[in-house]
């Protein structure tokens, strides 16, 4: 167990690699209850959220979810979020645990006089069921649960799972298919135990923060605080696809337009370490002449890709796949090469 954003979180249960493989080949169960859940209710709920985010919340329908960044006026990233539109007057914003207070304050302020705001984080648990057998496991948990297999990606619905009232969303943070289940805090232990009991024979295993990190890295999903933060903007972070410049306005739009008008100075790229070493968050990146040119933001062995992989910011001139550079592993320069991402893409069923 380790402290994480004020929570005690399990790093591993049976071992990071074992849990990682379970998620890739069968299924894994994650306790993601540390995430923040902020609810907006009222006629203007969608509009309030839309003004804060770079993606376009007006383009999704009821029962649909949306990945996005929220930026500050300077165009750098306050947080990455998933927006769940339950109805035109009811929107749930899911934020990172480490940013809950910051985002809660921003959303509460924006909601003032326009709609109701409730921080539900302390009453809401979040359990992620991920992997190729996730829906087989869910199917064992009652009639409603089986219907969730019909959900499209980034859609959600209310359902009773193992006798617990949940909101089931086809979202996740592993690169696998699967669902995330929101439920009441008090119901979570029962739901967790039931799913593990039902899913055990199908290969379902509990998975901790360690596997969550290796899984999301292989799928090149950004980790706030590592790959993105208030010193990085969505365009250089490879998140330009969630910035909708055709929206009339959103916080940070002018700054991002100015950034977009010029060639990017640096880019967040994926790389493989070809020498002997493991790149870690904060290690310096050097060009082949040994000059400091960037920084590693995430890195670890990739259990499924079978290589040591990482993400880091490099000058645009060194960001093309195939470009060789060096990772300064505590004074040792270890060879690495820029590669295309994601490192891992799940096989099409």
């Amino acid at each position: 167990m380790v402290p994480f954003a004020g929570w005690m979180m399990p790093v591993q249960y049976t071992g990071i690699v074992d849990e990682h493989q379970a998620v890739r080949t069968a299924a894994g169960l994650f306790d993601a209850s540390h995430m923040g859940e902020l609810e907006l209710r009222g006629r203007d709920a969608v509009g309030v959220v839309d003004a804060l985010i770079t993606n376009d919340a007006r383009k999704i329908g009821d029962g649909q979810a949306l990945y996005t960044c929220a930026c500050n006026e300077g165009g750098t990233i306050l947080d990455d979020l998933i927006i769940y539109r339950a109805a035109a007057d009811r929107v749930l914003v899911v934020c990172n645990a480490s940013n809950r207070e910051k985002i809660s304050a921003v959303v509460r302020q924006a909601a003032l006089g326009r709609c109701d705001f409730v921080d539900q984080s302390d009453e809401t648990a979040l359990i992620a069921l991920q992997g190729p057998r996730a829906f087989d496991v869910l199917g064992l948990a009652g009639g409603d649960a089986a219907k969730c297999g019909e959900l499209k990606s980034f859609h959600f619905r209310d359902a009773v799972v193992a006798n617990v009232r949940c909101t089931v969303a086809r979202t996740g943070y592993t690169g696998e298919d699967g669902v995330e289940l929101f439920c009441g805090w008090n119901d979570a232990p029962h739901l967790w135990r039931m799913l593990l009991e039902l899913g055990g024979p199908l290969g379902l295993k509990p998975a901790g923060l360690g596997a969550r990190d290796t899984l999301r890295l292989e799928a090149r999903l950004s980790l706030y605080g590592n790959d993105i933060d208030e010193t990085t903007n969505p365009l250089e972070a490879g998140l330009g696809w969630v910035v909708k410049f055709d929206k009339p306005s959103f916080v940070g739009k002018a700054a991002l337009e100015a950034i977009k008008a010029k060639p990017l100075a640096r880019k967040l790229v994926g790389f493989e370490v070809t020498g002997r070493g493991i790149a870690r968050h904060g290690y310096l990146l050097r060009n082949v002449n040994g000059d400091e040119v960037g920084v590693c933001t995430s890195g670890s062995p990739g259990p499924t890709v079978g290589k040591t992989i990482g993400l880091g910011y490099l000058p645009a001139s060194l960001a093309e796949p195939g470009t060789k550079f060096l990772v300064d592993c505590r004074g040792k320069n270890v060879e690495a090469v820029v590669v295309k991402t994601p490192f891992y893409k799940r096989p099409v069923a």
Partner: protein
Amino acid sequence: MSNVPDSLRYTSDHEWTKDEGGRVTVGITAFAVEQLGDITLVNIDVKVGDDLEAGKAFGTIESVKTLSDLFAPVSGKVVAVNADLESKPELVNEDCYGKAWMITLDAAPGSTSALLDAAAYNAHLKATAH
């Protein structure tokens, strides 16, 4: 409780030593392995013939999540390095007191007597667990 063989001597940094008349073989303990998890890389930065001073780093060990330094438990001249670990770091998970020995030092006789015996190391583990 972790496996702590009686025949070895230990450091508070969770390394074991096996002293055979001044030839001191060094590895990491089962407790250290449990804490690190899946070992993915062992780098031994010394070679046969190098002189090592007690407390100096002689390499690093990396698991999926973290990196730890390896420290010389006693002073001495390096007489053997386990080259197998370079290509098979998983040996550390499989057999930390056997096949995953790391280096052997030619040390002064009796230099390991100042290290922890099994009982003292067990007490140290108990204390760090709280």
